[in-house]
């Protein structure tokens, strides 16, 4: 009797399970986008990572954005009407806003979104300097806008005026800089600079980070640890999509079906779901089963299943047949850093020991095998390049000598021998890592490679940290000698990665290496006010070489992003430069049979 009941129950379960697979979506066009991490806070002032940015740039408006398809990346006006008017000396920027409205929300007096004004822009940038905001973006404008730092220090009085940040009228913002800052417009395309309505910030208080209200193309419906659901913002009104202006190239983009979207008003979706799936296996399964999400950024482990070959990169025929594909490089890099402030391996007062330490760092660099790292962890899809100017930038130097990234254990042994390093004398190295399977395996690989040049494995100590915050703290406090660092460029300018070595940025700043080279600092300062051009590129390249010569880092590798999506989705996904702007241009259409 019992068995019969169970059988009936199983049948019922099976029936139900087959009944709900597939079928038309009742809510209109829905796109389910998968990203590989969970955003912390949706308050633009905290949106420093790609996960938060993906949502923030779609819920809020930024003054500028990047063109959808143009590569190299090109800025385009977004909430701003046009590019700013810049004074002769490069210090005063005048920006006109276009007409826009915040989405409807109970935070507004009558529940109806009001027009966005220049005062909102002033408020949104200014609040980064109010300590209560706990901003993660203030550093972008620190010491750069006249009176802004002082305003924050003096109690962030909402009534007080900031000389360098003013609303001239409802639609005009004036920014006065302390010194020329050519990257200012880039920072105004970052999610951190997005425009928030003061009413909502006041109304929701701390909850603003989960109840975001903005003037972007979408509006948040719900949010939990696994997904965010968005609907179009009814007030969002921009001129129709102009594919040509966005950089459409029939040769590169012709097969994505984007032409059908040209001239239409965006956003196109009735519902946008962003799923947060950190585990590579589940992300892939959710996509490949065709049931849960519509896209996937390929976990490298998956490469064997979808790729016929990695060099050149060829997909399997079945993948080409079933899915749309896009291959691009990340706008970031992965590198190892030394803590130069530790006299055991970094700078040393004694010139001879200083030279020996330099040789030691270079030996460790030679011992490290980037090709093996690339093969094992990135399926050979990454690109290894010398220094910190990644290939997607104009300043990249393709013919830079590669000895800094070549695996050369013999040379490493030679260097150690030349400077009298013996197994007994070699210092204990603390290798910091975040607790995860992959990071642990990377450590074991590194240690084995160092063992091959005679570095005793017991002298490579592992210090594991449970969270990125803990790991970051340990690096800042100089508790680790060797650390792996991922650095994503928030704007396409080598200055963003070179700042990692700028002396005044030393820990707790971004210069986690505690690199201190007066020659570098001087050249970095000279490059700062320069606009993009040959003079600046030459300086950037000099800076890159300085870092390489000092063996302060081991690197770098830039990862290849392989995107797959279902052909009914018309888009070109690109989350690089901390973005997510493409989501407004996504449409879902069944392809013609």
């Amino acid at each position, binding site marked *: 009797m019992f068995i019969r009941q169970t059988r009936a129950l199983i049948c019922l379960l099976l029936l139900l399970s087959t009944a709900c697979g597939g079928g038309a979506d009742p809510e209109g066009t829905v796109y389910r986008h998968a990203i590989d991490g969970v955003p912390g806070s949706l308050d633009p002032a905290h949106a420093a990572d790609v996960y938060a940015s993906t949502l923030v740039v779609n819920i809020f408006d930024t003054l500028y954005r990047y063109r959808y398809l143009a590569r190299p990346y090109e800025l385009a006006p977004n909430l701003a009407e046009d590019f700013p008017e810049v004074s002769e000396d490069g210090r005063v920027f005048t920006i006109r806003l276009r007409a826009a409205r915040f989405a409807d929300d109970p935070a507004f007096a009558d529940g109806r979104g009001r027009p966005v004004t220049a005062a909102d822009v002033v408020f949104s940038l200014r609040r980064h300097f109010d300590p209560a905001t706990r901003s993660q973006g203030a550093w972008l404008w620190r010491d750069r806008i006249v009176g802004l730092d002082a305003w924050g220090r003096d109690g962030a009085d909402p009534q007080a005026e900031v000389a360098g940040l003013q609303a001239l009228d409802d639609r005009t913002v004036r920014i006065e800089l302390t010194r020329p800052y050519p990257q200012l417009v880039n920072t105004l395309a970052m999610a951190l600079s997005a425009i928030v309505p003061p009413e909502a910030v006041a109304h929701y208080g701390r909850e603003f980070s989960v109840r975001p209200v903005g003037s972007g193309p979408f509006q948040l419906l719900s949010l939990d640890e696994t997904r965010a659901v968005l609907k179009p913002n009814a007030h969002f009104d921009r001129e129709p999509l102009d594919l040509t202006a966005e950089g459409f190239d029939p040769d590169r983009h012709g097969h994505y079906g984007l032409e059908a979207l040209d001239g239409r008003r965006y956003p196109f979706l009735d519902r946008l779901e962003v799923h947060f799936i950190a585990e590579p*296996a589940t992300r892939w399964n959710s996509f490949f089963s065709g049931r849960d999400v519509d896209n996937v950024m390929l976990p490298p482990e998956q490469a064997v299943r979808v790729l016929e070959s990695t060099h050149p990169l060829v997909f399997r025929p079945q993948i080409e047949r079933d899915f749309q594909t896009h291959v691009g490089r990340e706008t970031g890099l992965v590198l190892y850093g030394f803590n130069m402030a530790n006299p055991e391996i970094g700078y040393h007062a004694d010139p001879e020991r200083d030279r020996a330490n330099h040789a030691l760092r270079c030996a460790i660099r030679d011992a490290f095998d980037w090709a093996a790292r690339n093969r094992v962890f990135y399926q050979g899809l990454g690109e290894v390049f010398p220094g910190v100017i990644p290939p997607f930038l104009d300043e990249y130097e393709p013919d830079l000598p590669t000895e800094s990234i070549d695996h050369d254990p013999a040379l490493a042994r030679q260097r150690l021998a030349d400077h009298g390093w013996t197994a007994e004398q070699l210092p204990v190295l603390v290798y910091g890592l975040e607790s*995860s399977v992959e990071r642990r395996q990377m450590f074991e690989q590194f*240690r*084995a490679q160092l063992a091959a040049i005679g570095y005793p494995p017991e002298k490579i100590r592992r210090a594991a940290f449970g969270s990125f915050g803990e790991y970051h703290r340990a690096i800042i406090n100089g508790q680790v000698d060797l650390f792996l660092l991922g650095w994503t460029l928030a704007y396409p300018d080598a200055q963003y990665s070179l700042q990692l070595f700028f002396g005044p940025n030393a820990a707790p700043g971004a210069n986690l290496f505690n690199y201190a080279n007066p020659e570098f600092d001087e050249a970095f300062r000279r490059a700062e006010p320069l606009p993009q051009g040959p003079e600046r590129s030459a300086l950037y390249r000099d800076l890159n070489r300085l870092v390489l010569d000092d063996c302060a880092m081991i690197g770098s590798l830039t990862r290849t992003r392989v995107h797959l999506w279902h052909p009914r989705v018309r888009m070109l996904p690109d989350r690089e430069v901390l973005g997510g702007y493409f989501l407004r241009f996504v449409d879902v259409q069944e392809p013609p049979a």
Partner: protein
Amino acid sequence: MSSLVVQSGRRLRGRLAGEPVGFLALIVVGAYALVACGVWLGWWGSEWSALAGPGWAAPSAEHWLGTNRLGQDILARALAATATAFEIGVLVAVVTTAIGGLAGGLSGYFSDGWPDEVLLWLMGTLDAIPFYLLVAALAFALHGHPWAMHLAMIATFWTTTARLVRAETQRIRRLPFIEAARVAGLLPRSIIVRHILPNTAHILLVQATLVFIAAIKVEVVLSFLGIGTQDSISWGVMIAEGAQDILAGQYGNFVVASLFLFGLVMAFSLFADQLQDSLDPRTQDSRWQPHG
């Protein structure tokens, strides 16, 4: 007194000989222990972290069970992990039993006195914190400490042993020979250590085996969550690696580690059953929550 221990030992031998399952289980556990000894003596498994070959190699004469992603020998890792399992299991079991026994003895001997109150409060407190929350928080709190995970497990496991010993002590306390010892002027400390605890040996022994099993299983979960063993290899680490390998269609690491784990836990469980049947048939099984 000690005659009880001898008696139960004899009973155990008799029972085990008559029970093929228990006997077989003991042999399997012995085989695992041999493997672990071999690792400690450096006979095998010492090269578990060496990059010995190409990544994800199929089983071959050189690598009997193939290699993992990095090209490390899976067999060497599984063998080395056996030693780790014993280290964790034995250490946690011994310390847990010692603490649990002493606390239980104290608490039971002084029941209705303040030591009992305090200990009961402490046990209640530890039991009321969700298991994984406490273990994870402790493991995190002591992060970087090589014994972090062990301490976390001991801190949470000892209460069960203590409760069982406490109940037994309360019973023994009323027996005439304890009464006699007290009249003879023995201090409570020596009464507990010399007279009461030896008579709870059956409980302690069974509890120790159960803690051994629980420790090994919990290690797997903690390592899977990323807060497990520090700089050594364990089945939990292998399973966590293996779960990622599955993505690339590589099952070796996962299957080997799972089977090694299953074999030891299964054999030890059957052995523990026999032990319990023969030594302590009255006490209810304390294994009532799946911890791992």
